């Protein structure tokens, strides 16, 4: 049983210390807006130069898992998603924090993260060879349909109406075309040098989510209303445990969706949380509560984005192809010690491979313990006076967008998009579909162009995009998803009353 053979290595005093540093450091870096998991891992690589390969990987593995979970902290408390993975967490998580349930939201998110994360790493350990085939199965035509499937989610995501959801999705798709075209190098809509590299997703995320909220805070002024100071509810941990497992449907949907989508190179990490959130809502009997601070939303989103961590490394560890930017950085961390990942990694360098996967398991558990410990304290953020809070969030937003690639251009983009979003929100549009458009646009476009180039050289466009089992399955899911949205919209209209509309409006303003 090789699996257990190397488990002890993680618990030697020095290695365990590294695991602690990686986890705590990762949580802090992850909670800092703008420091995505990719950057956090890249920042730690120089520290591994002087360590043994296995020790370096303990540090990196623990940091990777805990930054993904740490992103939930700023998403829930400040409504700044640290990375695309945390977008879905803001939807219900931040609402819960506003209602004084911040501690509960954080506890649920860390517990769900740990469950999803452990499942994902176990998949990585035991099913890697099988999963590698699955990761390779997605060619340009399939990725194109997958992106289209994501677009169908747009209409129903966190918006007062399907039409407004689709419209903000379209704005996102347009924003995604700005810059040099990925494949042909054509220049599109470059009206200012800040956007010559296209709109970077992280500054856009920060701007779209944080800035409207900052403006709202400042607009409220310094009126000292007692109602503004929230009573932050204490929430015992055992209750959170019970709640997570009572919501087993959201937990299992999140974990499974996250693991499956996380495998797909280049796509997974960014949309796993949102797709899981959408699926959990469609399958929940309490679907109307989503978006109003419902715990299922947090659980589904967070279990999905941590479940994705393990499988996202499958293409790297088996095929030596980094499937995500973070995996590319980890590859650097392996290469620097002369370790070539490949299907025989577990045979040629068992100590490294096993220690790495065990460190991710250990990281998940530790992350959960520390997360639960700080949740109660962190939730007190909600009691900070809003004027101070606005300034802090604004400062973090500027810092976060600047630090992505040390460019003031990104700060301008963040500020411009954020201000625009403030006005759009007034009219009932919301940020989540816009961001989804921004993320999916390039995936759909690049894969369509690549697919059509291959199709033109080999067969015909129709045969390439519309035949083959996987294509047909994906198209069927797309059709089902659209049909479901239409059906829900029609049914919803019949029951909507004036009171409902008024309440919705109030919640938005």
């Amino acid at each position: 049983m090789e699996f257990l053979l190397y488990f002890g290595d993680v618990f030697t005093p020095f290695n365990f210390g590294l695991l602690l540093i990686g986890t705590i450091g990762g949580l802090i870096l992850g909670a800092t807006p703008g420091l995505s998991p990719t950057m956090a891992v890249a920042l730690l690589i120089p520290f591994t130069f002087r360590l043994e390969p296995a020790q370096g990987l303990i540090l990196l593995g623990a940091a990777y898992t805990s930054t993904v979970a740490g992103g939930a902290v700023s998403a829930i408390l400040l409504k700044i998603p640290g990375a695309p993975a945390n977008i879905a967490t803001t939807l219900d998580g931040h609402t819960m924090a506003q209602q004084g349930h911040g501690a509960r939201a954080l506890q649920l998110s860390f517990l769900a993260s740990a469950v999803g994360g452990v499942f994902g790493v176990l998949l990585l350990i035991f099913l890697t060879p099988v999963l590698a085939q699955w990761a390779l199965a997605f060619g340009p035509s399939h990725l194109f349909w997958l992106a289209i499937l994501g677009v169908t989610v747009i209409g129903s995501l966190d918006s007062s109406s399907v039409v407004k959801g689709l419209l903000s999705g379209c704005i996102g798709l347009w924003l995604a075309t700005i810059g040099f075209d990925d494949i042909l190098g054509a220049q599109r809509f470059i009206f200012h040098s800040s956007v010559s590299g296209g709109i970077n997703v992280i500054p856009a995320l920060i701007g779209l989510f944080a800035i409207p909220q900052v403006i709202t805070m400042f607009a409220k002024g310094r009126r000292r209303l007692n109602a503004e100071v929230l009573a932050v509810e204490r929430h015992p941990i055992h209750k959170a445990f019970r709640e997570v497992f009572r919501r087993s449907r959201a937990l299992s949907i999140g974990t499974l969706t996250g693991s499956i989508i996380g495998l797909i190179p280049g796509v997974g990490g960014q949309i796993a949380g949102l797709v899981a959130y959408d699926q959990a809502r469609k399958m929940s009997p309490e679907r109307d509560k989503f978006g109003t601070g419902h715990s299922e939303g947090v659980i589904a989103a967070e279990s999905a984005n941590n479940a994705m961590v393990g499988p996202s490394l499958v293409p790297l560890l088996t095929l030596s192809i980094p499937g995500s930017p973070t995996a590319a950085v980890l590859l650097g961390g392996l290469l620097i010690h002369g370790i070539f990942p490949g299907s025989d990694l577990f045979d040629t360098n068992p100590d490294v491979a096993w220690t790495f996967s065990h460190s991710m398991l250990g990281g998940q558990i530790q992350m959960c313990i520390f997360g639960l410990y700080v949740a109660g304290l962190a939730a007190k953020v909600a009691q900070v006076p809003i004027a101070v809070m606005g300034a802090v969030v604004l400062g973090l937003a500027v810092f976060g967008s600047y630090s992505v690639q040390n460019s003031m251009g990104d700060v301008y983009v963040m500020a411009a998009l954020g201000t625009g979003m403030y006005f759009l929100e007034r009219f009932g549009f919301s940020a989540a579909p816009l961001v989804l458009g921004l993320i999916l646009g390039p995936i759909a476009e690049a894969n369509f162009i690549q697919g059509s180039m291959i199709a033109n050289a080999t067969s015909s466009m129709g045969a390439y995009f519309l035949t083959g089992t996987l294509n047909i399955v994906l198209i069927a899911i797309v059709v089902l998803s659209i049909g479901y949205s239409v059906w829900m919209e029609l049914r919803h209209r019949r029951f909507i009353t004036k009171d409902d509309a008024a309440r919705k409006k109030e919640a938005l303003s």
Partner: protein
Amino acid sequence: MKKLLVAASIAMMGLTGTAAADENYPERPIMLMVSYGAGGATDFQARIVTMTAGNEDALGMPIAIINKPGAGGRVGWNWFATQADADGYTLGAYNIPHFIAQSIEGGVEYGADSFEPIANWGADPAVFVVAADSEFNSMADVVDYAKENPGRLTFSGAGLFVGHHIAALQLEKAAGVKLAYIPNNQGGAGAMKAVIAGEVLGGVNNLSDAFRAREAGNVKILGVFDLERNDFLPDVPTLREQGFDIDNASVNFRGVMVPKGTPQPVIDKLAEVLPTMFENGRVQGRMKAGGSPMHIMTRAEVIEMWKAREVTLKELLAGL
């Protein structure tokens, strides 16, 4: 008395002007701009070759890497040509043929004249790869297939106007066939995945990445787009050995440059120290372990190489 001395020395420094400042160069940490993201091959290698900069026998000051990725490197190089300070504290990493090819293509604010090369650290030739179970076993097989099926031999590469694209154009020209080059939007890694997954029949890729993929048992390497065989792949013949007239124009050279207008003494100092830094044993060991071929060239050699490359590329890209 002490104050007087200080004042006098300050006055002296004022008199001698920049020369004194240049002699003490570098006085603070230096920044190296890499126009690709963290974790990419250029970033990875830049971090290794600069790790000994802080040593007393090198620059005595550390070099920090700053990434400015986007649009195939155009964002970073545009910034470097137009906004970077020409004071010697802002270095940039170059990738040849990428930035020269992009400047010929147009739409960017730089050309080979915008920068001053310092030294070259690496050369990563392009290679032709096919999946491990492919029926192709030599470049002749590939070209025969392309002759029978003109325009239907699909093969992937990291994008347009990069080394892989140049290699593809050279192959088309030398073999006199029409091929279907499929540029990938996720760089070399994406192009390699397309080959392994069988989405395309073959691909042009970096030697270092192909070497790793072959170690993992996923691909066969059929030819090297360089003048000589590579130490990492002594068993793989060059394209020229296989009867195609292809030189090293597609080889991805990586090195350090500064913006035009940087003081000459600073350029001289950097040009003297950097090659010795690259030769450091620890650097060489790390680079070899990572499968990254090194090729150290001095400033004079790089100037020659840039000039030669510009002529070849203008010729090759003229038809596009």
